């Protein structure tokens, strides 16, 4: 029996005031305990899709439901958002707070008394050195910032985790470490998880299922194993853009 659906986009449409359509009748279902990776070129609206899911950007039409609550249900907004945690592309760590405070802030705000202890535990879980706990984000390397962002995201024990380009701006070795850390976290916490990236290595490690976003719609989706065997031309072009360019040059 398949696990229940945790997130559902129902014909979501989003057009910006300058006329750019980013989501065009967008439909997507993500099941509980499933890790979905959405691939797509830069600027196709992957990050906007996350913002629509979180209700940070309003849709023109359609609906999004997560955990049985509609994103438009303003009365249950707090309950809706409490299901989510997100690791932002930029880290989005609070400049004015130390690493430890960044992680404990959300917990303190929810009235959890031992917030600092939990924060330290999570920072150790993401393999951050203890000497960095009292530092400010500006003093951290890109990889360390991503670790703190991950620790902050998992500290709230969310039902749904969102990862926005988790390895962007990192060197391949650090990127690979962060990717493995995310996979470990997903397995440990058994989460429903959506990752947006254009890095195929990330998709191969993190994903149970992969989808390709283009022109505001999901144009291909399948198990991660099918990623390299698909005949879908858009996916082939995304995976190996130089192949097509070389072919057209030869012609």
């Amino acid at each position, binding site marked *: 029996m398949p696990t229940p659906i945790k997130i559902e986009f129902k014909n979501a449409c989003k057009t910006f005031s300058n006329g750019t359509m980013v989501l065009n009748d967008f439909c997507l279902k993500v099941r509980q305990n499933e890790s979905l990776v959405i691939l797509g070129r830069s600027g196709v609206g992957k990050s906007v899709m996350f*913002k629509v899911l*979180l209700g940070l950007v309003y849709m023109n039409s359609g609906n999004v439901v997560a955990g049985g609550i509609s994103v438009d249900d303003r009365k249950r907004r707090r309950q809706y958002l409490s299901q*989510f945690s*997100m690791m*932002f*592309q*930029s880290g989005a760590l609070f*400049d004015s707070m130390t690493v430890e405070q960044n992680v404990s802030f*959300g917990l303190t*705000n929810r009235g959890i008394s031992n917030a600092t202890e939990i924060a330290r535990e999570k920072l150790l879980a993401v393999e951050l050195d203890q000497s960095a706990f009292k530092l400010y984000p500006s003093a951290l390397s890109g990889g360390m910032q991503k670790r703190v962002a991950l620790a902050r995201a998992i500290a709230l024990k969310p039902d749904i985790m969102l990862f926005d380009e988790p390895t962007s701006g990192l060197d391949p070795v650090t990127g690979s470490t962060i990717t493995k850390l995310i996979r470990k976290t997903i397995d440990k916490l058994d989460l429903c998880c959506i990752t947006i990236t254009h890095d195929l290595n990330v998709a191969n490690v993190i994903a149970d299922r992969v989808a390709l976003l283009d022109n505001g719609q999901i144009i291909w989706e399948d198990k991660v194993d099918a990623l390299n065997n698909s005949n879908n031309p858009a996916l082939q072009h995304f995976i190996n853009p130089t192949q097509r360019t070389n072919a057209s040059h030869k012609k």
Partner: protein
Amino acid sequence: MNLLANIGARTISMLVEAGKVAIFVSKGVWACCSWPLYMGELLKQMLNAGFFSIPIVGLTAVFSGMVIALQTYVGFAKFSGESAVATVVIVAITRELGPVMAGLMVAGRTSASIAAELGSMKISEQIDALEILGVNPFRFLVAPRILACLICLPLLTLLADVIGVFGGFLVGTTKLGFASRPYMTQTLANLAADDVICGLVKSACFGFTIAVFGCFYGFNSARGAKSVGEATTMAVVAACMGILILNYIVTAMFFGA
């Protein structure tokens, strides 16, 4: 036709902007009146808007007082009214120069800093992160800044009043040849509670304006360093304009009749 269309478009865009500010103000006021109040943030903002503004406000006030004393003496000497220097200084400082100079100085310093800080937070997605953590950005970012400016501006104005009068006293007694005791007696005799209260009401309004425009333009900053710069400029310009307009409105309310 093009000219008319341009005027129409600009009018509509101004009205839209005014509407956005009105909505932002109502959300900000609501955040100030509702729980939780982030005391740590409030103290931090009070330190930033109040304590660290003391040198600049003090310096402006002392020189304003000195200039007023000097100009009054030179001007009033033409009709033998030099003895009114102390009176003019106390009235001008408490009614106008104290609150307006403090307001403009804090607008330049604090409004710009608020807009730049919030603009940077906006483009680095820190404001979105707050929302996802279940923290209302208006309560955490806007309310402490509004309250800090509301509390600190009247205090800074009181300080500017004292320092400004001292500046006038300094010039009056050392350069213009007034005896210190009669000068102080005349100053205290012309110190009116209404003038001071009017100045404090003005400064509270100025504090609100400074914080609101700083937060508004910071929150609405677009992506990129250039946009943060533009937001900062707009915040200072709007706050200064707001201060000058409010200055007339409050003055008319107190002394118009």
